[in-house]
């Protein structure tokens, strides 16, 4: 088996330009690696026939951009024309979309090659990839541990070096948390930066598609590709095109960083805090100003998310009735109400049903006032809290997760555990801010990640600081170990 995909993106690009390798070499290497790593369960559907066809077509084309012929894995809630899109659910087990998501058109324009659709928590509801109808994804570093979620398949496919890139989606931490658990770089862009057209909606005011990669620079290159104004998404923002890698390498001396006290509270694993504090000390030694701050009501992030995300989810998932598409029961049915209930009751999994019921409840009758409107007020306060901090600080940083990857099966009977896994990532979604998780250490062969948060549309600044930290730590995390040994 070849190992071209272990090279940097720039090296692969040069080899393609010099005709030392062909696109088909990269594609076949991907599928060989998928076969060798089948036990990780990171793919639901492979796109082998079309990927080979496209690779052969690209042989006769000019290598005109850095992402040309580069394989990419797509989270299975991003719709792909003619390629099954399941959202990790029995409800959509046979669903074949008739059009492509906006981001798929963008990566096609760069002539990237879609390798397959990655496993995920059902309808992106979960933080350990244990709610997927297609089974759990195993952590790339330790197969007895969870991958994190909901973009677990995407994170593991990148971490295990099957593909150099994947797309994920992040509603409360679903890109950043599995990125941290698998030692890769994952970015949730500013809300509105990347079109949600063709992303199967979970919570529309929180969802955002983002890039997942092996390192910071390559992450910025994929973001360059997928952004843009899209009239098919009401919330898509009009922004001039920019190179998100342009600030990488600039001096960080004198920048101002805030660390919310909540992000280093007693509930955070000590090893995670220790690795995070190591980074803080490195930054201080480089002349960075660091202050510890408070954000009002941030400690209520979990119930806030439970109300807002689940209210939106109950509304968004109402479209799945099993009539026009989706799972349909074979039970004898007497009326329309029964048909809906059986289709949905049998088609959705346990976690999704739990969340639909809570969402329906908080939106029913007077509960709208008591729960939903109140949650929206607190969301405004938290968002204003972030805005005020960014008047005085360039960055907000903290750990990505409260724990290291845990054992598969752990907490399965705890209905609130999956929400608390996202304790430190949820606030960013509430305010619509951009945030990245990047690896900062390893403990007992399990990766640790930290978050870098910026004000809206300041992704380039995130890449600047992230690149500095990446260079200083020089971790080069690879779950396969040192290949030169």
């Amino acid at each position, binding site marked *: 088996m070849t190992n071209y995909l272990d090279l940097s993106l720039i090296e692969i690009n040069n080899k393609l330009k010099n005709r030392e390798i062909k696109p088909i070499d990269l594609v076949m290497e991907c599928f060989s690696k998928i076969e060798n790593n089948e036990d990780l369960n990171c793919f639901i559907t492979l796109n082998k026939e079309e990927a080979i066809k496209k690779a052969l077509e690209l042989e006769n084309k000019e290598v005109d951009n850095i992402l040309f012929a580069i394989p990419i894995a797509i989270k299975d809630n991003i719709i792909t024309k003619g390629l099954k899109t399941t959202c990790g659910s029995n409800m959509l087990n046979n669903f074949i979309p008739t059009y492509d998501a906006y981001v798929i058109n963008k990566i096609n324009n760069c002539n990237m090659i879609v390798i397959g659709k990655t496993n995920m928590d059902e309808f992106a509801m979960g933080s350990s990839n244990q709610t997927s109808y297609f089974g759990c994804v195993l952590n790339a570093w330790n197969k007895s541990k969870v991958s994190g979620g909901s973009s677990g398949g995407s994170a593991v496919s990148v971490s295990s070096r099957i593909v150099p890139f994947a797309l994920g989606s992040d509603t409360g931490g679903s890109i950043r948390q599995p990125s941290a658990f698998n030692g890769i770089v994952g970015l949730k862009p500013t809300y509105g930066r990347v079109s949600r057209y063709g992303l199967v909606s979970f919570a529309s005011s929180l969802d955002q598609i983002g890039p997942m990669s092996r390192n910071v620079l390559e992450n910025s290159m994929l973001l360059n590709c997928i952004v843009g104004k899209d009239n098919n998404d009401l919330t898509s923002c009009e922004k001039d095109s920019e190179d998100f890698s342009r600030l990488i390498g600039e001096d960080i001396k004198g920048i101002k960083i805030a660390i919310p006290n909540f992000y280093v509270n007693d509930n955070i694993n000590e090893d995670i805090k220790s690795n995070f504090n190591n980074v803080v000390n490195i930054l201080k030694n480089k002349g960075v100003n660091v202050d510890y701050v408070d954000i009002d009501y941030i400690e209520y992030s979990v119930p806030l998310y439970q*109300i807002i995300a689940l209210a939106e989810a109950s509304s968004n998932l109402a479209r799945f009735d099993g009539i026009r598409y989706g799972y349909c029961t074979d039970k004898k049915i007497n009326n329309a109400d029964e048909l*809906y209930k059986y289709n949905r009751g049998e088609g959705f999994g346990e976690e999704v049903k739990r969340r639909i019921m809570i969402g329906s409840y908080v939106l029913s009758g007077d509960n709208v006032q008591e729960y939903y409107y109140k949650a929206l007020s607190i969301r405004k306060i938290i968002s204003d809290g972030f805005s005020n901090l960014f008047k005085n600080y360039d960055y907000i940083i903290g750990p990505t997760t409260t724990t290291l990857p845990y054992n598969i099966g752990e907490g399965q009977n705890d209905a609130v555990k999956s929400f608390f896994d996202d304790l430190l990532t949820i606030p960013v979604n509430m305010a619509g801010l951009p945030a990245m998780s990047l690896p900062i250490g390893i403990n007992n062969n399990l990766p640790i990640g930290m978050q870098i948060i910026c004000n809206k549309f300041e992704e380039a600044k995130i890449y600047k600081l992230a690149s500095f930290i990446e260079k200083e730590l020089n971790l080069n995390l690879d779950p396969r170990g040192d290949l030169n040994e």
Partner: protein
Amino acid sequence: MDKLSREEVLHVAHLGKLYLNEEEIEKYKIQLKQIMDEVNKIKNLDIKESDFLVSPSDNINIYSNHEIKQVDREKILSNSCNRDGSFIGVRWYNND
């Protein structure tokens, strides 16, 4: 009270248009209560703020172009398990 009643679970299942079997009803009595205990922390807060944040987007409105898009009828119909020729059937009407 450490769990919801059977009636409460069936009520929220009805709101969500979900059929639950007996095993699920028993499980959700406890699990939904666990979540509601968290959610009620918001209900009990005394908040002065009167403004809402519904969406982080600052966009006012977007109008799409009026254009007719052709869709492949065959491909759309093929996603339904109740296909009846050129139509999507609703099975209980057929009384089968």
